[in-house]
C-alpha cells in the first residue's frame, strides 16, 4: 500500500503528517522539538526512514537532529559548521565588507544513494556536507571561494544558500541558489563552480544584468529533464533549457510574478506550479485570494487553481521551501503557509484541502512517497 509522509518545519517545532495513497485521512504527529524553530527537514531518497532536521534559534544556535525511524524518534548529531580556512568577507547591506559568519542551516539535501551523505546550505552562504550521517560537517569551499563571494550581499532574510538540486543523471553536476547572489553550477562534483545567471534582470541592482547579485528565491527541476530548471526570482518566473547557460522569462499571464515557491509535477516535466505573492513590499496573495498557478506548457500560460483554497481575506505567505510534490498517481501537491495551514491536492492541483489549519508559521514542507 503506498502512502505519503509530509515533513513540516515550523517556527515552533516539526510535524509529521502521514496518509495512505488516497491522501484523504491524515495522522498528525508533533510537535517534535516543541517551541524551537525547525528550518528544514528532509528524508534520504536511499532510506526514507533516515530524516535530517535543522533546528535553529537565536537562543541556542544551530542544532542538528537525525531520525532513523521515519521521524518517530530523534538523535542529536553534530552542529559544528566551521568555514574552510580564512573565512573572508562578503558585502553587508550597506556595501561594506562583513566577515563570513555561520548563522544557520537553511536547507538539507541528502544524497540520492547514500543515507549517511547529506549536503547543507547555510547562512552566511556556503555549502557543507557530512559523510557520516551528520556527525561531522565540512565545507565544500569551491563555491564560496570561486571568486565572486566577496561581492555577495544578503537578502532581507540573510545571505542564505537555500536550494540544492542534484542532477540524477550526472553525479558531478549540482545546482545551488543563494539570496541574493544568484544561481551557481558545478560540473565536477563541487570542486569548482560558476554563476549561471545570464538572462536574469533585477531592476533593483545598479547593473540589472550583473553576473551575481540576483535574489533567486527558489529553483526546481524534474528528474527526467535535468537540463530544464524553473526559477522563482524575487520578481519574475524564469526557465532555462540548457542547465542555466541562459534563462528566459515565463511569467506570462500571472497576476504577479513575485513569489517564493516553484515546483514541478512528478510525472509531467512541463507542468509547473507557483504561488504568486502581491509584491516584495506586500507578502500576501493578490486580492487576498490564495491561488496556486499551474502551467502545463512549461510556463507563460498559467491557470489559477482555487478549489478548496480561501478566495477572500487571505493574507498569508508561502515561503520558499514550503512546497513539494509526491510521486503517486495522480501527483499530489502540497504547500504550507505562514498562517499555519498545510494544504494538499491529491489530483495535481485541481482540488485542495487543508491537512492541518492551525500549526505555527510554516517554514518548510517536504514530502516522502512511501511504498
Amino acid at each position, binding site marked *: 500500500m503506498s502512502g505519503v509522509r509530509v515533513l513540516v518545519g515550523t517556527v515552533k517545532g516539526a510535524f509529521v503528517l502521514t496518509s495512505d495513497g488516497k491522501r484523504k485521512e491524515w495522522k498528525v504527529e508533533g510537535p517534535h522539538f516543541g*517551541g*524551537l524553530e525547525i528550518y528544514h527537514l528532509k528524508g534520504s531518497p536511499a532510506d526514507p526512514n533516515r530524516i535530517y532536521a535543522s533546528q535553529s*534559534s*537565536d*537562543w*541556542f*544556535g*544551530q*542544532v542538528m537532529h537525525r531520525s532513523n525511524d521515519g521521524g518517530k524518534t530523534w538523535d*542529536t548529531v553534530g*552542529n*559544528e559548521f*566551521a568555514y574552510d580556512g580564512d573565512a573572508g568577507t562578503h558585502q553587508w547591506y550597506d556595501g561594506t565588507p562583513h566577515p563570513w559568519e*555561520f548563522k544557520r542551516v537553511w536547507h538539507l539535501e541528502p544524497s540520492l544513494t547514500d543515507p549517511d551523505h547529506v549536503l547543507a546550505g547555510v547562512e552566511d552562504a556556503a555549502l557543507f556536507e557530512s559523510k557520516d550521517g551528520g556527525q561531522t560537517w565540512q565545507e565544500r569551499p569551491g563555491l564560496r571561494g570561486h571568486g565572486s563571494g566577496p561581492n555577495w550581499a544578503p537578502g532581507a532574510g540573510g545571505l542564505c544558500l537555500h536550494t540544492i538540486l542534484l542532477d540524477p543523471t550526472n553525479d558531478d553536476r549540482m545546482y545551488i541558489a543563494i539570496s541574493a547572489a544568484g544561481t551557481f553550477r558545478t560540473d565536477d562534483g563541487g570542486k569548482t563552480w560558476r554563476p549561471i545567471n545570464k538572462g536574469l534582470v533585477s531592476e533593483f541592482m545598479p547593473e540589472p544584468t550583473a553576473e551575481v547579485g540576483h535574489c533567486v528565491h527558489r529553483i526546481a527541476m524534474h528528474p527526467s529533464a535535468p537540463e530544464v530548471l524553473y526559477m522563482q526570482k524575487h520578481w519574475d518566473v524564469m526557465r532555462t533549457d540548457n542547465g542555466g547557460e541562459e534563462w528566459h522569462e515565463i511569467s506570462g499571464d500571472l497576476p504577479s510574478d513575485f513569489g517564493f515557491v516553484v515546483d514541478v509535477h512528478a510525472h509531467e516535466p512541463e507542468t509547473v506550479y507557483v504561488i504568486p505573492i502581491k509584491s516584495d513590499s506586500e507578502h500576501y496573495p493578490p486580492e487576498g485570494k490564495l491561488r496556486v498557478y499551474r502551467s502545463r506548457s512549461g510556463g507563460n500560460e498559467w491557470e489559477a487553481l482555487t478549489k478548496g483554497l480561501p478566495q477572500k481575506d487571505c493574507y498569508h505567505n508561502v515561503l520558499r521551501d514550503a512546497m513539494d510534490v509526491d510521486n503517486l498517481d495522480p501527483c499530489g501537491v502540497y504547500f504550507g503557509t505562514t498562517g499555519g495551514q498545510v494544504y494538499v491536492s491529491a489530483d495535481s492541483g485541481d482540488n485542495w484541502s487543508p491537512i492541518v489549519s492551525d500549526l505555527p508559521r510554516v517554514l518548510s514542507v517536504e514530502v516522502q512517497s512511501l511504498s
Partner: protein
Amino acid sequence: MIRVVLPYHLRNLAGVGKEVSLEVEPPVTARSIVDSLEAAYPALRGTIRDQTSLERRPLLRYFACGEDVSHRPDDEVLPAAIADGREAFLIIGAIAGG
C-alpha cells in the same frame, strides 16, 4: 559536585532534569563548568557558546550566588558556594520572543 541549572530547551536536548551535577576540577570558573557540561552532554555543544569563538550566546546569561557573572572573564574563579555545591550555577535564557 557542581550543580548547574539549565533552561528548558537545553534540559530537553540533554535529556536531563532542571538541574545536573558535575565533577569540575578546581579552579571552578564559568569556562570550566561549561567545558565539563559539554563533555558530559555532547548534545549541548554549541548551544551555550559558539563552538569556534567560545563566546557565550548573547541570549543566555550566567548567574552565581544571585549575581550576573555573564560579563566577567570566563576564567574568573567563582564563589566557594558554587565550587562546593551549596549554590547552583544558573544558565538562564532570555525571556523574549513570540
